[in-house]
């Protein structure tokens, strides 16, 4: 009778792989960034001899968001819309429980964007005592909106990506 020998399973030699891992970990630790930095692009108004930056086509407006210690005050400007049309875009969003209502600002700007699809510029005008973080929060709300796709996922879409920071003329 022939005895069948079971094939002996050799353990995989993991030592070289471990050596590689141990060398890679300190290297990656050196380049790891646990504090992720990004940028927010803004500009300040400058004086120029060129024509006005105000939109002249009827599909776009420039929104102005004044940030005061009480909340947001919104106005619109355009070279082609009537006073009454521009006035209809005015809004006041007061603070809610002592905090700026970022969500309401985003919803309102989304509504304006849907009405004037070519709009891309927003003027942010903070009051002198408004904190930098509050200013950045308002810019965040003004730049993007979240749109649900057909697959059910949410996607970021540009709202007013061109942000100009200005100050109140006293």
């Amino acid at each position, binding site marked *: 009778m022939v005895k069948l020998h079971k094939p002996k399973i050799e*353990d995989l030699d*993991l*030592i070289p*792989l*471990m050596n590689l*891992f*141990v060398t*890679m*970990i300190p290297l*990656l*630790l050196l*380049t*790891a*960034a*646990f*504090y*992720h*930095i*990004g*940028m*927010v*692009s*803004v*500009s*300040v*108004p*400058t004086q120029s001899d060129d024509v006005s930056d105000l939109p002249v086509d009827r599909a776009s407006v420039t929104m102005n968001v004044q940030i005061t210690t009480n909340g947001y005050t919104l106005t619109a400007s355009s070279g082609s819309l009537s006073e009454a049309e521009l006035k209809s875009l005015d809004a006041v969003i007061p603070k809610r429980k002592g905090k700026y209502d970022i969500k309401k600002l985003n919803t309102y700007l989304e509504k304006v964007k849907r009405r004037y699809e070519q709009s891309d510029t927003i003027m942010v005008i*903070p*009051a*002198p*005592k*408004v*904190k*930098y*973080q509050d*200013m*950045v*929060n308002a*810019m*965040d709300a003004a*730049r*993007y909106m979240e749109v649900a796709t057909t697959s059910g996922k949410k996607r*970021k879409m540009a709202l007013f990506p061109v942000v100009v*920071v200005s*100050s109140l003329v006293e």
Partner: protein
Amino acid sequence: MFDSAMGRRQRGAHEVQKLNLNSMMDMLSIILVFLLANSSAEEQDFVIAKNLNLPNSHSSLGFSKAVQVKLTRKELLIEDTFVAKVSNAKIVGVDIDGGKIVPLYNMLQRYRSLSRDADKTTVVFQAEKTFPFEVLNQVMRTAAMAGYPNFRFAIQKK
């Protein structure tokens, strides 16, 4: 019975027990994946100033190179060069002429003339998130007067 147990013990003394590396490998793999996901060569170039908390933002815009102006809780810097002292969220001890911080204006103009960057109109601005807009506005206005009307606010991604 005693003999057989003794025999096993003696045989065991000569066997070299292999270290089980599987769990160790699992652990290292997890660490490696985590570090690979968090490593970025780009952010290595960006140095955040001391005494500074950057604001939080959802912005996905990446880092870009330009002259850096840093407004910390203690000082105002261009790159790492001291420009003015900051005390209680106010720039102190420097000439301010018509809203223009004179030493900042002079240094920015010098940077602009020496700069080899393609974009000579943009400043990367690092500022303390708790500061009021009035102090930021002073710096921004000065930079705009010196020929830098475009800014990239450095933020901490949410």
